[in-house]
């Protein structure tokens, strides 16, 4: 009887010394995290709050101190601005098409990298190259390849007999977004491929062994075994990429500047903020973009936590 009571006491009330140690450790934990948290609050928390505040004012870049509170005026105007909705549409189209292509292509490359063959290292090295090249440089390299007069792509298409007249890739409204999507696919597929490869390498090998023994066709193996097992990793990769694609700025700005046909939400906000000096309105647009992404992120994290019970 007494042994049970003593044991229960030990479980319920740990000895004084351990409790003090725990408290000390928790205190030092916060101490250790403090510098990082302070910096993060300074570069992320404060500026975000400031931007949200500016969204409710008529601030102008030339004199930020003279900003006056004007309530939701900026937002009302924003939601009625066809240029804003054009930017939203461009961003959605860009994100959807880019991520779809990157997923399919990335999956194919991941499967190839997962197979055992000579020259696998060469493939992996080649695939990392687009990822290693700075976005600005990729934009310039492809901008040159897409050049309407001297570009090698138009030349190649002409030689193949697919076109008669050179296409003005980045200038023509029909092709501008396509050009940007193609470059983003080139740049980001390696990342997708690597994420999916990591997922593939963690799959249990027994299913594949038995499938091979049973003589199942590789395509069926992919759709019936690989794909369902890979779904969690696939979802993570896709959602991560979509969130990233919504924020796109660098690539589009360097390839086609403030061109309306390719303007993403980030570019729209920046144009208002820096070029038009309308800090109030630009901040409202930026806040809107943030809220859209935050909504998706919260959904993504919540689903992730539900699926993982840690």
């Amino acid at each position, binding site marked *: 009887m007494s042994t049970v009571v003593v044991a229960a006491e030990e479980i319920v009330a740990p000895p004084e010394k351990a409790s003090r140690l725990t408290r000390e450790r928790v205190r030092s*934990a916060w101490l250790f995290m403090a510098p990082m948290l302070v910096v993060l609050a300074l570069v992320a928390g*404060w500026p975000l709050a400031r931007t949200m505040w500016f969204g409710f004012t008529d601030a102008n870049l030339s004199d930020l101190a003279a900003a006056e509170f004007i309530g939701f005026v900026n937002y009302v105007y924003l939601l009625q601005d066809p240029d804003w909705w054009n930017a939203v549409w461009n961003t959605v189209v860009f994100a959807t098409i880019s991520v779809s292509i990157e997923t399919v292509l990335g999956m194919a490359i991941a499967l190839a990298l997962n197979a055992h063959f000579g020259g696998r290292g060469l493939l992996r090295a080649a695939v990392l190259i687009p990822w290693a090249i700075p976005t600005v*440089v990729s934009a310039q390299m492809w901008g040159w390849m897409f050049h309407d007069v001297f570009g090698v792509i138009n030349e190649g298409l002409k030689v193949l007999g697919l076109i008669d007249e050179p296409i003005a890739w980045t200038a023509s409204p029909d092709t501008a977004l396509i050009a940007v999507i193609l470059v983003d696919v080139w740049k980001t597929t390696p990342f997708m491929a690597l994420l999916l490869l990591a997922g593939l390498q963690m799959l249990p090998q027994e299913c594949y062994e038995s499938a091979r023994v049973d003589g199942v066709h590789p395509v069926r193996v992919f759709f019936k075994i690989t794909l369902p097992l890979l779904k969690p990793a696939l979802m993570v990769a896709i959602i991560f990429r979509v969130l990233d694609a919504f924020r796109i700025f660098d690539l589009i700005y360097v390839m086609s500047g403030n061109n309306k046909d390719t303007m993403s939400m980030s570019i729209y906000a920046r144009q208002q903020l820096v070029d038009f000096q309308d800090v109030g309105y630009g901040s409202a647009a930026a806040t809107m973009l943030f809220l859209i992404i935050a909504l998706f992120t919260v959904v993504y994290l919540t689903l992730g936590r539900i699926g993982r019970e840690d």
Partner: protein
Amino acid sequence: MSRTTKKLIGRGAFYLFLVVIVFYTVFPFYWAIVSSLKTGSELFKVEFWPSDPAWDNYVAVFREQPFGRNILNSVFVAVSTVLLSLSLAVAAAYALGRIQFRGRTTLLFVVLGVSMFPQIAVLSGMFELIRAMGLYNNLFALTLSYMIFTLPFTVWVLTTFMRELPKELEEAAIVDGAKPYTIVTKVFMPLMGPALATTGLLAFIAAWNEFLFALTFTLSSEMRTVPVAIALISGASSYELPWGNIMAASVIVTVPLIVLVLIFQRAIVSGLTAGAVKG
């Protein structure tokens, strides 16, 4: 069709696919090199190797803008970013990875959430802050502002790594009366070489690559970093871009990066996937 033939065709298609992939990934870079070696009107001909290769464009890049200075700026910003992020992140990772406390998971997700901020959403606030701190047109403005995207993944990856370290070492140190600071520096740091190198490398590449903040927080061409310099290379008139120069600058910047990435392939791949798959 016999099974061997089917197998051969399958193999052939596979290798064809590989060739296409390698061509697709490498061609733009190859084309940039070729274009950078062409001078004058050669640029306007589509040839797969210049008939008269010359280094003119490379010389012009350094002559027409302070490109050497731009490269040094980028190196300075990238190195300082890595040093700052790693020091902040290692300390935080110890707390988040080894010590149980209330709110730990929430905090981790908040830090991860910051990595989803669109840069434009913090731009006006950051701009005001940078100006208030007197850091406008100063490279430290970049080092500081880059923390917004380096801290989340360095903290996350290092925390994941810290969690895996053996508990016995830490317990032995605690029994010996070691303070947390000693535990981190004397017990764990020596074990974290690979993780620090990997996250450091990723942070370096991210900082090197960054464009929007570098564009907005610098004014003079001497203070620009490489991405901004390459984006803003201009010619005699606003309609005449010196493509030869632009390609030369691109090659100059890319070759060391590619060499770095090829050498550290495995580290990079494991670093990129560590956070995503485990986290």
